[in-house]
């Protein structure tokens, strides 16, 4: 017992004050990750063999795919980002959370609401707006739960002791304010008092792009900045550009929605504004890549990062972000967009953003945060390796298969889509996620005796 005590790290007072909500968020995200991964395999299997589980209406493709996407984004990614944002912001702003029951309440309501909504989807109560499919009473409950669960970083920011701010804090504040705004406006204009016809598509595209690029993407970018600076011990290279990067990212990303509706029945000037915004994303992308790569690359930094678990995942995340941003820029132009619209290509683009970029960064962050939160070590190094390699292989396979098939499909009617690579990728991701969840749950449950935690 004494030996295990000595091998445990100590938990600082800040970590202690946010420990309960962060644990709750991470625990919930792990459960949703498993659910989403199993559903991901079923979805991929149904693409290959459409009759698979086809007799039962609960498991029809429309419901299962909706379930998978919502569980992944609202269950896994959002819960994990609640934890990350709270943890990073509290550390940077030296913030001690006094009433930790409030975010806990928010987290509980969020997850119960999500479970209710997804059960309704399973029963067939769903509407046609991606990521707003759950019954319309779910959306306001999610906003309220978000206010309790995720607004604490803003409080921490407002109460920071010094005026100095690190770039991660901007991104967290931005992402935290974007979510309630887009969620309220989108549900008002789509679910509660629907606007007319084509306008709905426009509102939805705006909501969708903001959710992916600003709420998920913005939070993940904050984590990349933080862990690169923290784990490499270096200051961010060309840091004076980070402010420009932040403002241009939030300005242009929120306008890219109409670029996903090219050729659709919306006024052509809106489509053109979307194209311009999408191409102007080159500005923040260049700055972010200069910041990230410029910090890590010199003095053999890539090799050092590769040998650090957190930075290894973050590196994959940086590559995912760069590729996803460049592809979104290139394929928002009218000529290229026409070739791949409605094909697997756009599926692969989305996977790049929410998985290769956002999820990989979350994994890296979890490998940093969990030991400090629980004061214990990761139970198995083998599972860490398994997690990294199957998830990396899975995401690369999925993206390459989607991009090549989408590209090959353009202008052809005799094109046969093969879902086998996607099925294999989904299975690899399930293996990796199981390894991760097993490892993390072992850690969250093993550490229990309060005597192991030192309080000052």
């Amino acid at each position, binding site marked *: 017992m004494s030996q295990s005590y000595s091998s445990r790290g100590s938990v*600082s007072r800040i970590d202690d004050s946010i420990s309960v909500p962060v644990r709750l968020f991470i625990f919930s995200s792990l459960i949703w990750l498993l659910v989403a991964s199993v559903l991901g395999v079923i979805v991929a299997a149904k693409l290959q063999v459409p009759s698979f589980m086809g007799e039962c209406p609960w498991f029809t493709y429309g419901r299962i795919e909706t379930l998978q996407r919502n569980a992944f984004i609202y269950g896994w990614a959002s819960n994990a980002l609640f934890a990350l944002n709270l943890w990073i912001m509290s550390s940077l702003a030296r913030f001690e959370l006094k009433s930790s029951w409030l975010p806990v309440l928010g987290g509980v309501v969020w997850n119960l609401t999500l479970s209710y909504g997804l059960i309704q989807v399973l029963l067939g109560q769903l509407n046609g707006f991606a990521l707003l499919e759950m019954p319309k009473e779910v959306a306001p409950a999610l906003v309220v739960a978000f206010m309790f669960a995720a607004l604490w970083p803003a409080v921490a920011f407002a109460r920071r002791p*010094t005026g*100095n701010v*690190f770039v991660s804090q901007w991104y967290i504040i931005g992402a935290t304010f974007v979510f309630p705004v887009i969620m309220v406006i989108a549900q008002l204009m789509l679910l509660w008092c629907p606007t007319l016809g084509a306008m709905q598509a426009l509102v939805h595209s705006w909501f969708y792009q903001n959710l992916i690029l600003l709420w998920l993407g913005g939070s993940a970018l904050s984590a990349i900045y933080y862990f690169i600076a923290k784990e490499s011990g270096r200051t961010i290279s060309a840091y*004076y550009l980070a402010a420009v990067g932040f403002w241009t990212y939030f300005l242009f990303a929120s306008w890219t929605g109409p670029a996903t509706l090219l050729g659709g029945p919306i*006024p052509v000037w809106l489509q*053109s504004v979307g194209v311009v915004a999408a191409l*102007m994303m080159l500005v923040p992308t260049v700055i972010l890549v200069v910041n990230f790569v410029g910090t890590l690359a010199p003095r053999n930094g890539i090799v050092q990062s590769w*040998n650090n678990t957190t930075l290894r995942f973050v590196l994959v995340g940086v590559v995912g972000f760069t590729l996803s941003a460049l592809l979104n820029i290139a394929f928002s132009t009218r000529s290229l967009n026409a070739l791949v619209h409605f094909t697997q290509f756009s599926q692969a683009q989305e996977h790049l953003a929410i998985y290769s970029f956002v999820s990989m960064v979350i994994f890296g962050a979890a490998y940093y945060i969990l030991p400090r939160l629980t004061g214990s070590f990761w139970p198995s190094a083998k599972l860490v390796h398994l997690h990294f390699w199957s998830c990396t292989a899975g995401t690369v396979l999925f993206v390459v298969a989607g991009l090549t098939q989408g590209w090959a499909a353009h202008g052809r009617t005799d094109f046969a889509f093969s879902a086998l690579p996607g099925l294999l990728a989904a299975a690899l991701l399930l293996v990796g996620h199981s390894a991760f969840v097993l490892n993390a749950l072992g850690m969250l449950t093993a550490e229990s005796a309060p005597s192991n935690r030192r309080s000052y």
Partner: protein
Amino acid sequence: MTDPHSSNNHSQRSSHEGSEGSADSRLVEAHSQLAKNKEEPSEGFSSLPIIIVFLFCGFGFWAGVYLTRNAGGFSANTFDLDAPRLVADSGPKEFEADLAKGQTLFLQQCAACHQATGLGVPGAFPPLAGSPWPVGNDERIIKIVLAGLAGEIEVKGAKYVGNMPNIGAGLKDAQVANIVSYVRSAWGNSAGTVSDVKVAEVRKAIGGRGQYSPKEILDAHPLETK
């Protein structure tokens, strides 16, 4: 490769030597200084600001030009970039068969059976390439596209028992005209194009009828060649 587990342990121990929090305030402090100061020339990015400023100005200029050219006059009623040019032409326009549109429609509506090559599937779906059916009198093919054709037919010496649905019933006159014109001129077929007016006349004449039988259509419009 170093074991990530052990390296993680290592970083954890080293960061716990100083307290976690003070490391974070040093990080914030150092970056605040960086943000206030100008870049250090030794960083190797000294020419970057100038390049980036020029690059971004270039983007801004391009964006302005692109928007002026592609915004359709910022009208709420312009949904297609080609639309303003059409509006500019005055008077009713003469229909001109658009073979490219016809090909696209053919690939969407017809190619599943008749194939993109127009050769059909032996024993199942009759060919259109080199077939006497679509060429010659244009009313025959228009009627088949509009109402469908069910029964046994002979094309180029082979027998087919087909059941073609009334594909054209759900399409506009101009779309049917484009498809028919494409089929009549593709793959070595050489017959004249048809107009949307002609399609509208035939559609009105046949009314909402069911599929033709081979005998019925051939009695009305016998094949010109065998």
